[in-house]
């Protein structure tokens, strides 16, 4: 088990490192000089001043030097300052990260509850109208654009019914964005749950459990669902990554103050240090979650450790 975890941890570290290199290279290919953009509407800046700012930010150095300096600072916990506004980046990201995590986790919960429920029901009532209905609902959820669904939920529940605020940062304001993101992710979970459970329902040990006269609840939850959790947990780990990406759009629709919104702003402003900090944070988070999923996977199915 320890060896398995060590391998997974090393894999995570390499993934993050490669990501940082790719980010530095890609950002410099995007058109637009961040210093010029920073001063875009400031008519009084001289070319000398632009060069001074560029030098202070290290933007006049070769890319590999910029990268080396950046990584050495990061390893000391210094993510630098934003180009716009000269704000320290790490506290900025750490301050916003809990909001994105809350959104991602709560929407994952929504996706899991809806997806597991629909998928399980569809598998249990396979071949019936209920099966078709569940799948149509699930597919409908994934087909609906996140942006559109968010606006509709705001219109109905915030404007018409006044049940929620349009924008806020407390737990009540989390409900609509979590629902938006969760509904659109539920289809993947539902389909996988359905196909996994159908497979499991056809297993001999399930037939034996039915034959023994065990209550339906016991057969379905203790025997069937438990076995089906392994692939479902795997997909949930992947869904978390997808959810984090979707959070960027949802955060903007609902003005939810997570790092996704910060990232969009940074990209438009060509705020290189902030973009790098965001990508690095995002990569670490995804790697950590993948690692956690690997551990959970190993707990659920000890055979994995020995593969």
């Amino acid at each position, binding site marked *: 088990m320890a060896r398995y975890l060590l391998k997974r941890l090393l894999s995570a570290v390499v993934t993050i490192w490669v990501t940082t290199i790719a980010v530095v290279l890609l950002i410099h290919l995007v*058109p*637009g*000089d961040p210093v*010029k*953009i*920073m*001063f*875009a*509407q*400031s*008519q*009084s*800046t*001289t*070319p000398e*001043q632009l060069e001074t*700012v560029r030098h202070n930010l290290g933007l006049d150095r070769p890319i590999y030097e910029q990268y080396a300096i950046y990584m050495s600072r990061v390893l000391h916990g210094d993510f630098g300052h*934003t180009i*716009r*506004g*000269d*704000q*320290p980046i790490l506290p*900025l990201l750490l*301050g*916003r990260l809990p909001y994105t995590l809350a959104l991602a986790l709560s929407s994952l919960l929504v996706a899991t509850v809806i997806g597991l429920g629909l998928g399980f029901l569809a598998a249990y009532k396979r071949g019936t109208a209920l099966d078709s209905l569940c799948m149509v609902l699930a597919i409908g959820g994934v087909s609906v654009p996140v942006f559109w669904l968010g*606006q509709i939920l*705001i*219109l109905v529940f*915030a*404007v018409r*019914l*006044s*049940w*929620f*605020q*349009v*924008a*806020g*940062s407390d737990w*009540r304001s989390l409900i609509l964005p979590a629902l938006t993101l969760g509904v659109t992710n539920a289809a993947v979970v539902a389909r996988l749950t359905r196909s996994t459970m159908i497979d499991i329902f056809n297993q001999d040990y399930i037939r034996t459990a039915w034959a023994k*006269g*065990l*209550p339906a*609840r016991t057969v379905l939850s203790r025997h069937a669902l438990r076995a089906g959790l392994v692939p479902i947990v795997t997909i949930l780990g992947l869904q978390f990554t997808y959810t984090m990406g979707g959070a960027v759009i949802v955060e*903007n*629709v*609902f*003005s939810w*103050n997570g790092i996704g*919104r*910060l990232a*969009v*702003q940074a990209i*438009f*402003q*060509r705020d290189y240090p902030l973009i790098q900090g965001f990508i690095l944070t995002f990569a670490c988070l995804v790697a950590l979650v993948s690692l956690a999923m690997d551990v959970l996977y190993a707990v659920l199915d000890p055979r994995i450790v020995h593969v």
Partner: protein
Amino acid sequence: MAQVVRTSKSSRTGRIAALVLGVLAGAAVPLAALGARAADGTLVWARDGDSDSLDPQRTTTTLSWEVFAQIYDSLLAFDESGKIGPHLAKSWVVSPDGKEVSLTLNGDITCHDGAPFTAEDVKYTIDRALDAKNPSITKASWGPITSVDVVNPETVSVKFSSPFGAFLSFMTDPMASMLCRGDAKLGDKFGVSAAIGTGPFKLVSWTKGDQIVLERNTAYKNFGLPAQNKSAPHIAKLVVKNITEAQSRLAGLKTGELQVAEPPLAEVTTIKDDKTLTLVTAKNTGQDNFFEFAVHRPPFNDARARKAIAYALDIDGALDIVYGGLVDRERCPVAHPVMGSEQDFCKSVGYDYDPEKAKALLAELGYGPDKPLDVVMLSWTGGDRDKLVQVFQNQLQQVGIHAKIEMMDIGTLNARVTQENEKTTGPGTFDLMGWAWFDPDILYALWHSPGAYKGYSTPELDALLEKSRTSADPTSRLGLVHDIEKILLQEAVMIPVYTPGWNWIYAVRAEVKGFKVGPFKRPMFNDVTF
């Protein structure tokens, strides 16, 4: 025998009832909160972005200086018509040679930390802006200052190496906001989580990316802002919220969660019919939207091609179609109320819609019905500019100019325009750009070589721009500005189109009274009651 556990119907019903009650209770709380907010005098103003910094010397974005204008004061202020008048400084004297400006402060000005605001604070502010190691990013706007001397607690003398005509107008700008010496003691917190000024509101907190909370400065005195209220604001708190999506802002206005916000342009007609909301349109913004050209290659290296574009555009018609009265035609290189923005003068030296003249010029250049001129028209997204350039595209088509449209964000546009000016091959490009400033010194930044985008420049234009910058006498300066405008317009270096052009329309809850937008687009809350 297997035991089957059944849930009684009554306990299941109880759980469902509890759930419903819980949801209703949870839903009632936001409603209660909304009511409470309105009652305690807190006004929520939503914008499409957040400030970069609370330090006026570290950023120039509109979103930032809109907040500076609430926390800080400037030495001077524009009146409704855009004329410079007193504010923190009650009077000023410019020496005959233009190299010294003495400003005398009003008495009884207090900083948010309780300390008196004196000439020492003015010196601190200007010295900090000009600091060699870490100057303000608008250092050049302060002019060639050589020293700042405190004559007495209420008088400060600013000396220049040469006259600087734009100094007094810059003293009205939020980017020249006066800091208090207490800001020096805040260290790294200044501009990030703390700020001390003399403005109508004090900073309570800034949750970056979410909201800035300000509270009324009870000791405030309005010496010169164009507001009726000469003392502390009526509202207890001003919350400046960041809501990027325009539809979300509109939804918030409709629910009463927000009291002031910029609505989606497409909804303006609907809002006019909505009795719960009123529209406030900023006037005298100084925002100029204009066409400019990549002049270092054909066809726009030839003034005839630029003039052909000017003749081909029915600007009044296009503005009416797209904006229906929400914007004004702007004929000058600087938009009103900036000095030099005289529409009659600019009309006399510019070009009006005349498609036949456009065709004649194109024919001289070798273009005609069998050989249309292919060009690329660039602009930036937002403000319904995409609709406007489509109308222009159609108009250009009528005279035989095929304009391909490319829209992008303002950052990319700025970079692209410079790129196009550096290229020597490729189709001709021209762009619909936007700039806002409160002084004709903007023309120096845009057109003095090498130019903001490395575009058009000539020694003659450079000389005029330098003379205008160093002229302290308003009358002779205006004459120089006219000469500059004549070149820009007659050579069709730029084609002014309209004003304002971005973030100029506000939707306000009907119960909110007194909200106004001061000259150069400065939202003012001094008179607000609700």
